[in-house]
C-alpha cells in the first residue's frame, strides 16, 4: 500500500493531468449544452498543456537564463540547474492553437443558436427530426 502511495505521489502531475482530461472528456460526452461541451474541450486541451509544462520542471532548477553566458567566460553550465525551456515555448504555440479552436467553436455555436434558437443538443436534434428549421 505504501509503495502504491509512493508511486501515486511521485507522479502526481500525471494524475492531475489524467483527472483534468477525464473531466474534459466527461463534459464533452455527457453534457448536452454546446457551451459546456466547448468548456470541456478547453479543459481537455489545457490538461495536455499542463502535461508538457510539468515535464519541463526539475528539482532545484532555476529559470533558464544564463548570466554571463556569452563567450563562455562564466563557470561551467550544468543543464540540471536549469528548467527545460522548450516545452514552455511549444505550449505557447499550443495555447494559441487552443484559443483559435475556442474562437472557431464559439463562432459555430453562435451560428447554431441563430439557426435553432437553442444550444441544447437534444432540443436541436428534436428540431432536426421534426424538420422545422426556423432560420432567421
Amino acid at each position: 500500500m505504501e509503495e502504491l502511495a509512493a508511486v501515486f505521489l511521485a507522479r502526481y502531475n500525471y494524475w492531475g493531468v489524467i483527472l483534468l482530461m477525464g473531466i474534459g472528456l466527461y463534459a464533452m460526452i455527457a453534457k448536452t449544452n454546446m457551451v459546456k461541451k466547448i468548456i470541456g474541450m478547453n479543459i481537455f486541451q489545457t490538461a495536455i498543456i499542463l502535461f508538457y509544462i510539468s515535464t519541463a520542471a526539475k528539482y532545484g532548477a532555476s529559470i533558464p537564463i544564463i548570466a554571463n553566458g556569452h563567450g563562455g567566460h562564466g563557470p561551467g553550465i550544468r543543464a540540471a540547474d536549469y528548467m527545460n525551456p522548450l516545452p514552455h515555448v511549444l505550449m505557447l504555440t499550443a495555447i494559441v492553437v487552443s484559443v483559435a479552436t475556442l474562437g472557431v467553436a464559439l463562432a459555430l455555436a453562435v451560428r447554431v443558436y441563430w439557426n435553432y434558437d437553442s444550444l441544447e443538443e437534444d432540443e436541436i436534434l428534436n428540431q432536426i427530426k421534426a424538420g422545422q428549421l426556423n432560420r432567421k
Partner: protein
Amino acid sequence: MTSQIPALIIVVPLLAALVVSLAAWIRQSLCFAAALCAVLAAWISAILVMGRVINQGVITYRMAGWAPPWGISWHIDHLNAVVLILIATVALINLIATRSTAAREFEDRPGVFYALYLLFVTGLMGIVITGDIFNLYVLLEIASLSGYVLLGMGSGRAAVSSLSYLFIGTIGASLYLFGAGYLYIATGSLNMADIAAILPTIEQTGPIQASFILCLIGLFMKMAFFPLHTWLPNAYTHAPNSSASLIAPLTTKVMIYVMIRIILFVYQPDFAFAQMGIDRFIVWLAVIAILAGSLLAWKQERLKRMLAYIIVSEVGYMVGGFWLGNTAGMTGAVLHILNDAMMTLCLFLAAGALISRVQADAFGALQGVFTKMPFSMIAFVAGARSIIGVPPTCGFFSKWYLISGGMEAGHYAFVAALIISSLVNVLLFFRVIEIGYFEPFDSHHPENGQTTREAPLDMLVPLLVTAGLLIVMGFYANTLVTWIVKPAISAATMGGL
C-alpha cells in the same frame, strides 16, 4: 534560388491567404485570381520538388537555416513529394471547378472563402512536408480549423455538423499532441529523423508504447476510421459544395499519409509491427470499417451522404492495406491514397454539378439526368467505375495490390471484405445510374424540364479532366509504382520487412 523551392510550397499559399483577404476590400473579383495564382505556384513548386527528389534523392530543407534537430527541417522524399503534388492538383482543379458554385454559396464574402481555402491548402501541404512532430501538430490544426469553418459556412445543419466535427477533431489532435509529448520525454527530440535515430538505442517500453497508441488513436479520429467516423457523414453532407469537394478528397487521405509517415519513419516498422503486435487486430478493425462503411452507404437515400459513407469504407482499405505489413499491401495503400483522392474529387465535383442544376441530391431527384447532363454523368460513371475497381480506371490497380497484399499476408477476411465492398459499390452506383438513365426526366420535374441543362463549362472541363486523369493514372499505374511508390516504401522498410 532553386534550393529554396520547398519553402515556396508553404510560404506562397500562406501569404496569398493574407493577400486575398486584403484584396477583398479592393475588388472581390481579385480574390479568385489571387487564389488561382497561389495554388498554381504551389503546384509548379511541388512538381519541381518531385523532379529534384527523383533525380537527386531525399531533400532536407532547413527552415531559416537552422540545422536539425534544433531547427525545423523539411524532409522531402518520394512519399511526400507525390502527396504534395496530389494536394496541389486537387486544390487547383477544385478551385477552377467551383468558381461559380463558390460565388453563389459565399456571395457576400468571397475573400473569406478563398483565404480559408488557401489556409487549408497551406496546412495540408505543411503536414505533408514537415519533418518535425510538433510542427506537424500546429499545421494539422491550421488545416483542421480552416476546414471546420469552410464546412460550417453552409446553410441549415452545416454549423451543428461542423461543431461536432470540431469536438472530435480537437480530441484527435490533442491525443496526437499528448503522444508527441511522451515521445519528446523519452527521446528529447522533436525532429522525426532524430527521433528515428534515437528510438532504437533506448528501451522501448512504457512511454514509447503509450505515445504510439495515443498518436494512432488521435490519427484514427482525424481520418474517420470506423467506429471513430461519426463526424464525417454529417460534416460532408451539409457542407457547401465548393468546400466539400476540396475537403472530402484530401483530409482523410492526408491523415493516412501521416499515419504511414509516423509509423515508417519515426517509430519504424520493427517496433510498430513486430514489437507492438497489434497489426492483425487493426486489419480486423479495417475489415469491419470496410463492411460497415459499405452497408451504411447502402442505406442512404442521398447522393452526397452515400459518397461520404463510401469514404469511410475507403479509409478502411488504406488502413487495412498498410497494416498488412507487406510490400504489396503498403504499395496498394500508398497508391490508393493517390487514386482515392482523385476519384473522390471526381464524384464530389459531379455531385456538385448535379446539385447546381437539379437543386437536390435525393436519388428521386436524379431521374433522367443522363439526357439533360450527359457529360457530367459520363464523369460520374468514370468515378463510379474507379471506386468499384473496373479496369482501366486507376481504382482497379490499387485494389489489385491491396488484394494481393491480403493474399500474401494470409488475411483472407480482408480480401473478402474488399471484394464484398466492391460488389456493394456496384449495386450502390448502378442504383444511381439506373435512376438517372432509365427513368424519364419530365415525370419528376414537370416544372423545370426545359430549363435544366448541362453544367457550365468552367465546371464541366475540370470535371472531365479529373475523370480523364482517373484513366490516365490507371494506364500509368505501373510507372507510378516503379518510380514513386516503391522507392517511397523501400526507403523505410529495407531492414524490417
